[in-house]
């Protein structure tokens, strides 16, 4: 082999690496036995504090603490499913494809849309793919995207990253915008050059709006509308499909996926059938095999980058196969009434918390609109200080809004789910009342 490639020895292969960097002395501690390594790792792991016993959490802002039925994990860990990737000869894995097909079917039922892909990395990347899709739909002739300032700040950042070099005009994407204005005021930004309008439901502050009129206004200018939705809320409220949204995306984490360290999660992407050829990602379809039996296939694959190359709508066709399956299991175990029950518990507990917290002197709700399971609370002192005080009492406080929205520097975004008992909420109120008297 060395002769063929024209070198004398193996050392010649490394001659471009300066000699002193070839075998640096690594400053490593003495090697451990397996038993010692396990003990050390267990020590490190023990320093984690989690929300299943160590701490009470009221932190949401995109990742939510929900109960996950044990069957989800049991099914996921079956060897047949325990791979995160769609195989390269996908049709040989009928079980994997059926799992994705069920996931897609459940997602369209939940969002009120017609087509779902096999998922994206997370809610933020799914939202950015909506921009790619709209750009492809207008073949680059329209250049403006109107983004509500109440779309998750990190999702807006990912859109900015994804669209670098596309020469788009991202309007409305501003943390200093007037947050008291109604979403309908976005209408003034929508013009004949607008390809897509992006709003969130419930919005980043937990508020619920009916976007029907805004969507109608966008359609009258020929623009598409993408709604970023919380899937738990969709079990309780009017679906974006009923509002005539063109694209509904979001993060699937609330559907049976742990919060972990903020990921991995899965991003769902649903749309109308008209736009299926412009949709990124993998898509599983049901058909019959040569014996007339039901079978599942990857369908409309000619849209994808491995065939379309540089003309593809997106260069990402990866899906979160295992986590999409996890959320399909979660949804099918809970069923329609179970999902609604979870959403109702979240709603009622959040409203109890909001009512109690706003009774504290100097505190109050920031917005008056109806909300789901999250709300912005004015704490009248730096949010970071309030959170530090809460943590001393074993409570993870809310998301400090000041970094993303300078006008809200004394505000916490508080999330309440079915996992928070009344006692926990009362503890939060008590600790915050003390903070008030400090």
């Amino acid at each position, binding site marked *: 082999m060395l002769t063929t490639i024209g070198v004398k020895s193996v050392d010649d292969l490394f001659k471009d690496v300066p000699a002193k960097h070839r075998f640096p002395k690594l400053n490593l501690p003495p090697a451990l036995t397996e038993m010692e390594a396990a003990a050390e790792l267990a020590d490190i792991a023990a320093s984690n504090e989690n929300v299943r016993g160590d701490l009470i959490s009221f932190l949401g802002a995109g990742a939510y603490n929900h109960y996950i039925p044990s069957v989800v994990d049991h099914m996921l860990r079956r060897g047949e499913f325990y791979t995160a990737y769609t195989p390269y000869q996908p049709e040989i894995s009928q079980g994997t494809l059926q799992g994705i097909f069920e996931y897609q079917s459940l997602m369209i039922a939940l969002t009120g849309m017609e087509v779902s892909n096999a998922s994206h990395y997370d809610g933020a990347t799914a939202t950015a793919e909506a921009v790619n899709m709209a750009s492809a739909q207008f073949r680059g002739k329209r250049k403006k995207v109107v983004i509500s300032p109440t779309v998750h700040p990190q999702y807006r950042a990912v859109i900015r990253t994804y669209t670098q070099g596309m020469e788009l005009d991202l309007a409305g994407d501003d943390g200093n915008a007037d947050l008291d204005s109604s979403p309908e005021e976005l209408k003034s930004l929508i013009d004949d050059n607008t390809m897509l309008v992006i709003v969130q439901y419930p919005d980043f502050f937990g508020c619920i709006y009916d976007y029907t009129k805004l969507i109608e206004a966008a359609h009258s200018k020929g623009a598409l509308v993408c709604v970023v939705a919380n899937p738990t809320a969709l079990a309780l409220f009017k679906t974006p499909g009923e509002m005539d949204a063109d694209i509904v995306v979001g993060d699937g984490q609330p559907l049976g996926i742990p919060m972990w360290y903020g990921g991995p999660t899965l991003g769902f992407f649903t749309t109308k059938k008209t736009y299926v050829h412009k949709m990124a990602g993998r898509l599983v379809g049901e058909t019959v095999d040569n014996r007339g039996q039901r079978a599942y296939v990857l369908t*409309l694959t000619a849209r994808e980058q491995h*065939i379309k190359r540089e*003309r593809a709508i997106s260069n990402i066709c990866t899906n979160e196969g295992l986590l999409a399956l996890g959320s399909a299991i979660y949804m099918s175990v809970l069923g329609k009434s179970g999902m609604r029950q979870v959403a109702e518990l979240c709603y009622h507990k959040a409203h109890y918390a909001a009512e109690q917290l706003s009774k504290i002197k100097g505190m109050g709700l920031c917005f008056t609109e109806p909300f789901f399971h999250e709300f912005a609370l004015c704490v009248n002192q730096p949010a970071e200080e309030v959170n530090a005080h809460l943590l001393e009492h074993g409570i993870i406080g809310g998301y400090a809004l000041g970094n993303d929205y300078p006008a809200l520097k004394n505000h916490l975004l508080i999330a309440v789910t079915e996992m928070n008992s009344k006692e926990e909420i009362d503890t939060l109120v008590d600790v915050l009342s003390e903070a008030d008297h400090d």
Partner: protein
Amino acid sequence: MNTPSNLKYTKSNEWFDPSSGAMGLTDYAQSQLSDIVFVEILVEAGDTIEAGIPIASVESVKASAEIYASATGKVVAVNKALSEKPETLNSDPYSAGWMVKVENGEPGDVMDSAAYEKYCAEQTK
């Protein structure tokens, strides 16, 4: 393989009808693509197109292709029926499968049917 002698052909497998100004993809192209499931015409009536620019995007069950203009001219009509029935391109590529019509079309780099048949035979080799 069907290559009507009244038409002109490009190396990228499109045809042009000098008498009607219509253009589309050839019988050879549709047979190579196999079942066509999606067509999107990229130009509109009123556009001026130049030979060689993409006028349509086609997807089959196994491949995807851009269709290029076989002539320069002003678009007077596009075949909107194709998006509803993309399979027309497989069954009738030269008649019902026309894609775009131009007026006073100037053919680009084209050959006659005999030369195109020879060209296709070489491609298949």
